[in-house]
């Protein structure tokens, strides 16, 4: 199953032209870049901060920082990856301010072998999400993903929701590729485990091991 979204294919050709125009102070070119990516930045910020007000601030601050620092963008990566990197940093700063322990970091999650061992193996109903009303499902999914450590959430959202490649995710989060893969595996398995209790097929008995 290839999971990389293709919604940005073809967008890169004129993207660098927009970036170069914006570097010269062309606000309308930058506006177009805002329009392309504001939804993505909003989603990422919400997933990391889990706070609507903070997410709004992150969107504004990330775009403003990107605009002001455009001349530092070396054009060796995609503009979007560079923007996501700025947005993730802003979101983590917000999260740190709200947390008293101040330990929010991409590197500090404790990894153990145990968290990759599935505890409950149960088949899910064919379309388990359809058992819930849309709003109910959204709340359930939000609650479930918010239970994960911030760096697992960030990796999962960039890779699996936003469709960045492993390399782009590593660049945006300042992690190594093996670190991205390890966090992604843990995030996917932990989410699966947490969704089990809502989605498992009531017709069948789950095998607990």
């Amino acid at each position, binding site marked *: 199953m290839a999971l990389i979204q293709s919604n940005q294919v073809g967008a890169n050709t004129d993207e660098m032209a927009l970036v170069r125009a914006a570097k010269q102070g062309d606000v309308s070119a930058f506006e177009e870049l805002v329009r392309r990516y504001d939804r993505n930045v909003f989603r990422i910020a919400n997933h990391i901060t889990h706070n609507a007000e903070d997410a709004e601030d992150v969107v504004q601050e990330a*775009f403003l920082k990107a605009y*002001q620092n455009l001349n530092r963008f070396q054009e060796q990566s995609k503009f979007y990856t560079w923007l996501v990197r700025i947005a993730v940093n802003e979101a983590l700063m917000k999260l740190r301010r709200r947390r008293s322990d101040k330990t929010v970091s991409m590197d500090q999650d404790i990894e153990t072998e145990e968290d990759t061992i599935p505890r409950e193996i149960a088949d899910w109903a064919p379309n388990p999400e359809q058992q819930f009303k849309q709003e109910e499902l959204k709340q359930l999914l939000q609650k479930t993903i918010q239970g994960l450590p911030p760096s697992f959430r960030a990796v999962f959202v960039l890779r699996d929701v936003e469709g960045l490649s492993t390399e782009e995710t590593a660049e945006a989060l300042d992690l190594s590729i093996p670190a991205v893969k390890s966090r992604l595996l843990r995030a996917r398995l932990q989410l699966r485990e947490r969704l089990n209790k809502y989605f498992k097929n009531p017709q069948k008995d789950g095998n607990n091991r």
Partner: protein
Amino acid sequence: MTCAEFLKELTDYLDDALDSRTRAELEDHLVWCHECFVVCDTTKKTISIYRESKLYELPDDLRGRLHNAIVSKCKSKKPDAAAPDDKSKR
């Protein structure tokens, strides 16, 4: 292939990033190990449910407000360290 080895490769398998030999070994394991099959299948579903969930959509009115705020602040500033010529033109 053991279940532990299978789990280690699961992410690369779902991302279609395995060499053909490892992929074949893994698919062989899936044929006889029902538990790993279920883990693989439900993990796939987990990803697709999140991907299609449309969590945290940006509402149009908020989008408009954010957009105006960003643009008006950009208009009052220029990118840092722009060439002097470009600054004088605007």
